[in-house]
């Protein structure tokens, strides 16, 4: 059952539903196997932001502190969206290409094994 409660039909209000983020959606992003960042990070983003803007502005802000960030070859990065392989369209908006509220985006750089040199 949905919760052990003393009355049937108990319902908790979803505290993190999309309407509560002032027009933004939550996007969780992580650089696979780069644990310089302890965990994936959370970003409130406009749903119509072009994916290209995510790469140009959001990722440097979120992951640029890594010594290897500047070496990333964005043409060979492997993306996943909600644990499925994903090929982003840089011109299209986030939501337009399937990034929904509280989605998980992972980017992988197989040729860039993590090192801190």
């Amino acid at each position, binding site marked *: *059952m*949905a*919760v*052990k*409660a*003393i009355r049937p039909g*108990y*319902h*908790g*209000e*979803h*505290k*993190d*539903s*999309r309407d*509560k*983020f*002032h027009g*933004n959606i*939550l996007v*969780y992003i*992580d650089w*696979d*196997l780069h*644990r*310089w*960042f*302890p*965990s*994936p*990070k*959370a*970003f*409130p983003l406009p749903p119509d932001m072009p994916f290209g803007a995510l790469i140009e502005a959001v990722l440097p*802000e*979120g992951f640029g*502190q890594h*010594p290897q960030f500047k070496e990333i070859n964005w043409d060979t990065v492997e993306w996943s969206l*909600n*644990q499925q392989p994903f090929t982003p369209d840089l011109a299209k908006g986030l939501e337009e290409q399937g990034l*929904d*509220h*509280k*989605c*998980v985006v992972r980017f992988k750089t197989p040729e860039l094994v*993590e*090192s*801190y040199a």
Partner: protein
Amino acid sequence: MDQRATQQKKLNVKDKYRLLTRDLDWEFSYEDRKEAFPYEEFEGIKITDWDKWEDPFRLTMDAYWKYQAEKEKKLYAIYDAFAQNNGHLNISDARYVNAIKIFLTAVSPAEFASSNGFSWAGRHYGGMGARVAAQMQSLDELRHYQTQIHAMSHYNKYFDGFEEFAHMHDRVWYISVVKSFFDDCRSAGPFEYIVAVSFAFEYVLTNLLFVPFMSGAAYNGDMATVTFGFSAQSDEARHMTLGLEIIKFLLEQHEDNVPIVQQWLDKWLWRGYRILSVVAMMMDYMLPQKFMSWKEAWEVYFEEAGGALFKDLERYGIKMPDCAELISKEKDHLSHQAWWTFYSWGQAAAFHTWTPNAEELDWLSEKYPDTFDKYYRGRLEKAAELEAQGERFYNSGLPQLCQTCQIPMLFTECGHDEPMEISYRESVYNDERFHFCSDMCKTIFDNEPEKYVHSWLPVHQIFQGNCGGEGLDKVMEYYNMGLGTMNLDYKGSPDEERWKKWKGVA
């Protein structure tokens, strides 16, 4: 007056005990007993005979007060002596104090929540014996809340980060982890509450909280905390016996209770373990004088001791929770991942963080031969290098949190060939995605989603604008967290400056 008439026969111990415990109950003559105890059945627990309850400790209230008062007199005499003799100067190093800052801000408010929980749950047991036991435990927890605050109060005069524990409890991102544990069990029924706290936490896991903090205190010259620990020991002994009694009682009352209790053990062992993440990092990273690694502590206090316990419970049909296997795999990684999280987000913590020195790095290599050098030494050495260059690393942004345990999604797939992959789990409920750090946190959610969909997750609340506004400054103000005093690296902190002055070192 005739003296003989006023001399009454003294009650024998047995009668006095009965009158002051069991006989406080009565037969309801005009109210429905079920209405007086409305929460006894909704959890599915079946109690056939409350008379089978065996009092775990045989104390009457007057005896309780007498023993507790004696302990308090001794305890506060030592606190006074500690303060009068500037006991804070006898600790190994001022970095140690950050361990007890975590204790006061995260653990002590949980004692108060526990007092509240036992008071409520105790009221709702139909059996008088259980009500008496819970009432005494409620008083014990209140006592622990008070005595911990008083143990730390002297440090509060000399170090930053103690004074806002009450304010921070409902607001701060890492403190919500412990808060959510008690919010969860206190909003459950009286039987889940007591299995969660008395058995899972105060019996199975207690040594993994108590021994690390008290031994840590003893090894690092913290007389106040050591004395609190000794003073609380006899209380904790009672708590352990209550935990054992409740589990035995429930399992023996009705076979239908067994699967319910099993599910609770699975859940609460896990939730209890997750909050011990800070204890792991405290033991391995925050004690200038270390005494044991987290890995060692888990092996001794759970794998050995807990193994024997669950073997004992097999006769009831209870088995060791499945999560024990994963916990065993995580033990080589937990403290390093937890510390790195707090170190790198040190600008948002109400205690200082730092990189281990060379000797400490070697200790970690020795204690964690399979993982430390391979996965963790590199980033700590890099962090020290950046710090030496004047670019101490503070992580930008905010972490993704687990919906159930509320910890950042820092946990990795420790059992896999590639142990550095983040452990992602997900459920979709009412068209919304929810994320978890582990199978167990997901299972807990899936069993009662309506309970967790309205969790107050600090990171999301910040993004909703409910925590003072945008930007670290505003959030820290909302937290009452002193910027430049409570947070950031130990090196360069006002704590360090004062310590050096007191010790007469450069």
